[in-house]
């Protein structure tokens, strides 16, 4: 059944010249059908196009017809047009007039397939390299600015620093305390189950003490802070980029580094060791909570044992890592925020990226610390 709006065409090769007759609606809504019709045509000059039955025509229809002619190496000027109504002729010539300008094509690289995969991997690797180099550069600039503060301490934005400190440290206390308490309980419980079999209950205290202060508290607190404060830095600075506030800060003769970045970095560098300390205490407290009912170790036994067995260097080894983690988290968070271009989706992407980068860098740094401490015999 042929619907009258259905676009189709027929070619009469026996006529002289060969005649292509167009039928139906050559419109955007029928693009697929038209393209199918045109694909199978073998066109050659001399050619006459009969538009007598062409009921409707728009610029998409014209584009397809012109492309089909173009692919057959035919210029539409050499075609005899029959019964093309004035409006349709204007559409056709309008499209034709604009076509030559489109020879310089869009970025149409094919990103599917194996080759596309390699291209994407390469592009992403190169982008990652640039990003990391940029981070390094930014880290240097931040340290230089911080060094500058030592010479001119008055440039420190005290108020901004306090505000940031409150946000990254004080507000983070509850979640840090809760999470490390639970981790302390869990570790003591798991260790306790094993240690009990050998009657080595008391060594649970050593395990929790060393594990918590040296590794778990720093890593876990840094992860929480990366998700909380690193992401917040990126979102804050990214939003300020969008509203051009950072540009405004520059125009007012202020340095974003001084006003925005340094207070955040300093606040976090001070805050993270404090939070790690809270984490140490809460972790051991958690262990104490469960040691009494599970292992029969009273809190005073635990504390005594800690005094005797927990070498203070473990505690310092954990605490020393914290400011370094903080520096990386803050620098990544700030730089990712400043990198945001003027586009709404970018803030979300940058925030996600900050969290991933911060956590990965914390773990890499921790591994590096482990090797260094080993070599130093700490």
């Amino acid at each position: 059944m042929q619907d009258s709006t259905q676009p189709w065409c027929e070619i009469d090769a026996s006529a002289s010249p060969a005649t292509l007759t167009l039928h139906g609606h050559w419109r955007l809504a029928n693009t697929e059908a038209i393209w199918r019709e045109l694909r199978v045509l073998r066109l050659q000059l001399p050619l006459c196009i009969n538009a007598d039955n062409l009921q409707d025509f728009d610029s998409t229809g014209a584009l397809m017809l012109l492309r089909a002619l173009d692919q057959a190496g035919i210029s539409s000027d050499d075609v005899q047009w029959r019964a093309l109504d004035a409006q349709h002729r204007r559409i056709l010539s309008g499209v034709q007039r604009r076509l030559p300008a489109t020879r310089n094509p869009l970025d149409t690289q094919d990103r599917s397939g194996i080759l596309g995969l390699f291209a994407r991997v390469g592009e992403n690797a190169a982008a990652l390299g640039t990003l990391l180099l940029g981070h390094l550069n930014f880290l240097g600039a931040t340290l230089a600015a911080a060094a500058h503060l030592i010479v001119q301490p008055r440039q420190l934005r005290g108020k901004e620093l306090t505000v940031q400190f409150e946000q990254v440290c004080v507000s983070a206390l509850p979640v840090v305390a809760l999470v490390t308490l639970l981790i302390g309980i869990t570790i003591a419980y798991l260790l306790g189950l094993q240690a009990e079999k050998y009657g080595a209950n008391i060594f649970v205290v050593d395990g929790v003490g060393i594990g918590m202060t040296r590794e778990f508290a720093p890593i876990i607190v840094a992860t929480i802070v990366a998700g909380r404060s690193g992401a917040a830095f990126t979102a804050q600075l990214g939003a300020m980029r969008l509203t051009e506030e950072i540009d405004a800060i520059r125009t007012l003769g202020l340095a974003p580094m001084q006003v925005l970045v340094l207070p955040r970095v300093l606040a976090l560098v001070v805050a993270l060791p404090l939070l790690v300390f809270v984490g140490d205490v809460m972790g051991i407290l958690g262990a104490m909570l469960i040691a009494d009912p599970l292992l029969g170790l009273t809190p005073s036994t635990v504390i005594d044992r800690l005094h005797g067995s927990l070498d203070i260097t473990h505690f310092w080894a954990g605490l020393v890592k914290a400011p370094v983690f903080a520096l990386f988290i803050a620098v990544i968070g700030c730089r990712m925020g400043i990198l945001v271009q003027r586009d709404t989706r970018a803030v979300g992407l940058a925030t996600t990226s900050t969290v991933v980068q911060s956590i990965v860098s914390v773990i890499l740094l921790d591994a590096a610390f482990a090797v260094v401490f080993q070599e130093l015999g700490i």
Partner: protein
Amino acid sequence: MTPDAAPTTRDMPVVEVDNVVTRFGPQVVHDGVSFRIGRGTLTALIGGSGTGKSVLLREIIGLQRPTAGNIRVFGTDMWNAAEAQTAAVRRRFGMMFQDGALFSALTVAQNIRVPLLEHANIPGDLLHPLIELRLAQAGLTPDTGNKLPSQLSGGMRKRAAIARALALEPEILFLDEPTSGLDPATARSLDALVRSLVDDLGISVLVVTHDLDTLLTVVDRIIVLADGHVLADGPAAEVTAIDHPWIRSYFAIRTMTGTQSR
């Protein structure tokens, strides 16, 4: 074959605004506004600030409900027809919002591709040529397609918005202040662009504008809104000749600056 692909017969009005009343609380914005817009015409809607031009445009395209009265686009009552019908009508008009409302996270080409992928079955190898044609129809070069809206100048952003509005071959285009914030030369070239869309593609355009040059050079017909009514409706020459204080002062500014610059 979708029924909405059938074009409206040539003599049928594209937009019919019938006794529209709009009230916001005690404030009466429209108090019985009526007009029709035919095919292939370039019509301007003018009026003082706050006379409800933008509101009327939003009512026509179905974003805001009038308090009373009827609005039909392609014969479909935008406020009483079934959702499927109004959705079909929506596909037949294009709208350019004043600030462009381009998707900021997408390049210009991707912006044009959104409606194409959503509402039309475009064969893959035709998508790029079609996007390039839309860019060219809006007077943009193909490489502009690779840019993000934030990387464009004001005039280019307006053109990009027009290119996206043209994506689905609309039969009528609504433009809200297309030349505001542009330098005179860019504004004139945008006028010429809009005129050529009407002439080449045969589409209708309804433009809200304060730009007297647009009004006096490229527009076929001017509808003047004042005090909630249609104060005047006709070709520029007729409307400017009407003896009404608001119309006189509106066009007098033009005559004054015109004589000064000469």
